């Protein structure tokens, strides 16, 4: 009976396992292998080139710029989508009146349900140097010298995209934090108040440590999301001007489908894979270690 049960459980697991193998593990292995060849969609004879594609990446200034842009994206997202969102969630829960709370939560959450492409186009209008809301607003405030061709200048293009992404994601992560905060037993706060702790003290002494698990999760999601970013950049600048807003995803795409250098694109994909793998592994490690039970 025991043996039969074990086999039965295998039968249940097998379809999922097969799907994973075919659609996740096989492509990963295949991609690793292809990154060792020089080939494209039209090439008759793929040439084995060993680690040449990785060497090309190491010597490619745009690859490094893309990596830097991803890193900047990750760090900024961390500040806003984890740090700022947590504060926002705490403020929503602690300071705002019950009736207003629901409305505000909805308002913050709305950007998250807008498709990235739509949001990208929307922000392209906002950033339009001639008729865009942003430049018009700056002009109205007399800050003409602050006006920019936001998506058209190498210095501002990446930051403009990052800003759009923060606008879209803060609400989402804030709602996740709200859920986590609601799970914290109210007695803790009451006890702290009796002990004379103010709201700010309560935030640091109770809220922050009690939502640690959620913080870890959101941190991992945010960072790995920042390294996988593609749509926002593609819609708003396609990596330009002068490759200043390339990220690893768009540089991979450009090499694969426009430069016909699939081997190099596979090498970039492998780099992205290892970065996200590292982040994923650290999530598993950290969330095991820090789990709080009550």
């Amino acid at each position, binding site marked *: 009976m025991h043996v039969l049960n074990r086999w039965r459980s295998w039968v249940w697991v097998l379809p999922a396992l097969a799907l994973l193998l075919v659609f996740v593990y096989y492509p990963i292995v295949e991609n690793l292998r292809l990154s060792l060849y020089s080939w494209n969609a*039209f090439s008759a004879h793929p040439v084995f080139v060993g680690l040449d594609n990785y060497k090309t990446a190491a010597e490619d200034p745009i690859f490094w710029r893309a990596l830097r842009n991803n890193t900047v994206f990750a760090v900024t997202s961390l500040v806003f989508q984890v740090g700022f969102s947590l504060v926002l969630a705490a403020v929503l829960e602690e300071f705002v009146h019950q009736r207003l709370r629901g409305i505000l939560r909805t308002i913050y959450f709305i950007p998250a349900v807008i498709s990235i492409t739509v949001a990208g186009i929307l922000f392209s209008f906002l950033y339009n140097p*001639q008729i865009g809301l942003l430049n018009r607003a700056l002009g109205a405030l007399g800050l003409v010298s602050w006006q920019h061709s936001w998506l*058209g*200048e190498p210095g501002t293009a990446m930051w403009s995209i990052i800003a759009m992404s923060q606008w879209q994601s803060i609400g989402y992560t804030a709602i996740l934090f709200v859920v986590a905060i609601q799970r914290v037993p109210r007695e803790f706060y009451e006890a702290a108040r009796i002990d004379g702790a103010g709201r700010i003290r309560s935030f640091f002494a109770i809220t922050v440590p009690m939502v640690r698990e959620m913080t870890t999760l959101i941190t991992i999601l945010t960072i790995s999301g920042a390294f996988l970013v593609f749509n926002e950049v593609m819609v708003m600048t396609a990596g330009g001007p002068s490759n200043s807003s390339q990220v690893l995803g768009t540089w991979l795409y450009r090499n694969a*489908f426009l430069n016909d250098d*699939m081997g190099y694109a596979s090498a970039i994909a492998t780099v992205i894979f290892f970065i996200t793998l590292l982040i994923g592994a650290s999530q598993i490690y950290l969330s095991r270690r820090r789990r709080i039970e009550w």
Partner: protein
Amino acid sequence: MRSLTRVGASLAAVVTAVALAACGTPSTATTSGKQANLSTPKEKKGTLTMVTKFADPKYAPYFVDVTKAYEAANPGVKIQLEQVGDQPYKDKIRVLSASKKLPDIYFSWAGDFANKFVRANLAADLTSVIGPDTEWGKTFAPAALKAFQTNGKYYGVPIDLDAKYMAYNKKAFAKAGIANPPDSLETLLDDCGKLKSAGYTPIALGNQYGWPAIHYMTQLNAYAVKPDTLSKDYNPATGAFTDPGYVTALTQFQSIVKQCATPQANGLSHEAAQANFLNGKAAMHYLESLEFLALTTKGGASKDLADNWSFFKLPASSSSPGDTKALTGAPDGFMVNAQSENAALAVDFLKFMTNAQNAQKLTADIGWLSPVQGSATSSNSFPQLQEALTDMGKASQFAIWLDTVTNADVANAYLSGVEGLINGATTPQQVIKGVQDAAAKAKKQVG
């Protein structure tokens, strides 16, 4: 815990097995030198697959209509038409060719894009049916056929004629006191000053995705560099880009940007810039003849603009060593899959698509010029379109778009370099240095 280890072990074993199984060569196009039989099939039967890049609702219905008409005339034939957008087409066709799922008929730009299919043996040699001396070939403008010629063989069926022109607002020119359109680059730059004083943006330029600036460079390179040098440099196997004319062309473009173009052009899309021309704020706009329809009332322009625009070819500098009669543009076309079993049927359908009636329908329905001779008449087109056709007839040759005629690395170096030029971040010398490096890399890959 024990069973978990076991699952892990089996998983590792399977992953390894898959990895080993995958150790062949990457699956790419085959290169058998099979030559498709192109003679008109006795019995027209079967299913044809076709992919175009004309998903734009303005253009898509024409292709749907033509395929339906062919199906109606040949009940045994079914055509599976798939139309995608311009950018997605570039991905899709690569994925299809890598996975050996190339359709029987597929779209191609002229230049290196088409040559990639030729080199990989994916494009059928159509010389026997569409060569300039054949019955079908004679119906086309020779320059259009030539755009799809490689090593003396003809691989493409041109579907439209497209050239780049500077459209101008006659009212704006009159207000600025400009009697005639400029006949040299120097006059153009002068006129820009006058137009600015009259309160206009001289040239509406939106370069958000890079290619609009590339079209200027295509024309300016053709003017500033001798044709032989140009074709040598545009060939990835021999490209060097050391001729001083390239720097001259970039410097000329820099002057156009500084003195004429919309400021901050990198932050504006081509369409947003076009809106400035349509609403009368900008006096000129560099656009393709395929876009001319947008400047007519049928295409949505105001009557005020539609009645008051004309166009001229971007003028050459008075001291240009290159071919001053070259015209930026190229026909787009369709190619036939060399491995297709329906190649003959595909050719028959393309003959149908480019017969006199359907060529006239192309101009009447979507405002494109057809490479089929005599297809634009006063009844199916508007005056500017006919003038464009006459002007294309005067051109010595088409200067094919710089970003499709050259190798992709060179094209990218130009794209990002010229964007920097617009921002003022790079100099013409720096741009050409980047292009030279890319050309050296391309030479190594091809050679």
